[in-house]
């Protein structure tokens, strides 16, 4: 773990007009980590990711990526820097084909042969996408769409990947497959991962560290294994 966090939120406040969704949120994510944010519905997990990406406006505080403030950088300028999000609900472009979705992940890149190689790499991670490469994104099943969303994000060559509820609405066997791939992306591609999950058990097993978010505030921060064994967490989020 190096000394400088690759992504840091300092006293972030953000929200939607008069609705304050985040209050004084501070996070540090170090290179190579898998960090999980767990919390109930409406706690502000997705807002945290959308604020990092500049989609939800930052009201107070600051966000640092590699030590540089990104609060005034337009959302579309972030993926070229290596910061990419797979948003909640996957948000595949439904009327573009699987392959077109992947090509758009590489929209800012001009290295054609490299892009083609990366597409092949995504197909090797998710063979089902290769089989359906000419199919419209909207015709895929939920699990396939999640795979495509992750594959599309990989096409941006992320250094930090923000994942919002990758398990949402998927069958257990698909969830395992997807979490295996997430672990693989973290290890083999040295991508730092910030994972947001309602499924706290799953998230904390995949993560190295975790934050607990409650009504827009961070209430707890610890190693993932400690959180898993924390009686209060087990009671509140793991259904005991």
């Amino acid at each position, binding site marked *: 773990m190096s000394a400088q966090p690759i992504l840091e939120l300092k006293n972030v406040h953000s929200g939607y007009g008069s609705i304050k969704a985040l209050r004084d949120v501070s996070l540090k994510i170090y290179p190579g980590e898998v960090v999980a944010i767990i919390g109930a519905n409406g706690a502000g997990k997705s807002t945290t990711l959308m604020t990092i990406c500049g*989609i939800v406006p930052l009201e107070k505080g600051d966000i640092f990526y590699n030590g540089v403030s990104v609060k005034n950088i337009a*959302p579309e300028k972030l993926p070229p820097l290596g910061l990419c999000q797979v*948003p909640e609900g996957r948000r595949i472009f439904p009327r573009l084909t699987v392959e077109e979705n992947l*090509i758009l992940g590489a*929209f800012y890149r001009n290295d054609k042969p490299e892009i083609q190689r990366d597409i092949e790499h995504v197909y090797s991670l998710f063979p089902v996408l290769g089989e359906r490469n000419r199919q419209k994104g909207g015709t895929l099943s939920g699990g396939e769409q999640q795979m495509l969303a992750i594959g599309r994000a990989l096409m941006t060559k992320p250094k930090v990947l923000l994942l919002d509820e990758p398990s949402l609405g998927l069958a257990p066997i698909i969830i395992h497959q997807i979490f295996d791939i997430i672990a693989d992306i973290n290890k083999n591609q040295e991508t730092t991962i910030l994972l947001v999950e309602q499924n706290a058990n799953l998230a904390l097993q995949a993560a190295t560290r975790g934050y607990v978010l409650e009504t827009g505030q961070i209430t707890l921060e610890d190693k993932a294994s400690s959180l898993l064994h924390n009686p209060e967490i087990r009671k509140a989020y793991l259904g005991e």
Partner: protein
Amino acid sequence: MDSFIQQLINGITLGGIYALIALGYTMVYGVIQLINFAHGEFFAAGGYVGVIFLSFFTGLGYMETHPIFCLTASFALAMMYCAYLAIGVEKIAYKPLRKEARLAALLSALGVSIFLSNGLMLTQGVYDKAYPSELFQGGFSFGIITIGYLQVLIVCLTGALLVALNLLVFKTKIGMAMRATAQDKTMSALVAIGSNKIISLTFGIGAGLAAAAGIMVGLYYGSVRYDMGFLPGIKAFSAAVLGGIGNITGAMLGGLIIGMVEIFGAGYISGEYKDVFAFIILIGVLYFKPTGIMGENIDDTRV
């Protein structure tokens, strides 16, 4: 039968022109869900830029010696002028309202339409401006059917522009990005597609096509007028709705149908009612199938 074929050819010519204009409505709607009521003014402005340059070239005598160069230059200049005009209009009159209710931008569009049309009247005068008349006289004759050289030019050029647009939108990365922006702007930003650039591009392309149509109409009817954008504008809008607003193929199809119906209606029913047919179709579509021919879901905007 002969007159049927003649009408058919005239219908294709007019329909192609409507299709070119309709594309601007449908593309802009696809990307920002705005009916750009100022779109007809880009068509008129194109007609004027065309007449200015064609008259200029004719005056210099270049039209005799280098006709292809003069035509290409006039089309290119008019299309570029209107593209930048539309991009400017979007930045000044629509972009500041993007987060407001949709009605605000719609009213702004009506205002821009009045502004541009009056601007044209103040700078170019209230009277018709004639296109150089010696251009493209004559045509191919087959018995009593005549296909004017000008009609051939219009149909070929329209076809080329439609093919080029299809290639751009459906085969290139920037076209993919346009379609993605139409489908989900937030997600597009998350994969590094800046929606402002795509929106500018969409306005530019739409207005460029309308400008080309403006010159064609000027050449075809021999003159342009400051308020010439109004009627073809709303007919092309009807065509876009008929095809399914937001759908590019639909707009092309809708334009052709409206052009055909207008010509055949004028030929076989009554010439006095020729402007009415497009609106009968518009009302019919809105009543029976508001999503149009190619549109599937009215909330599900598409390019």
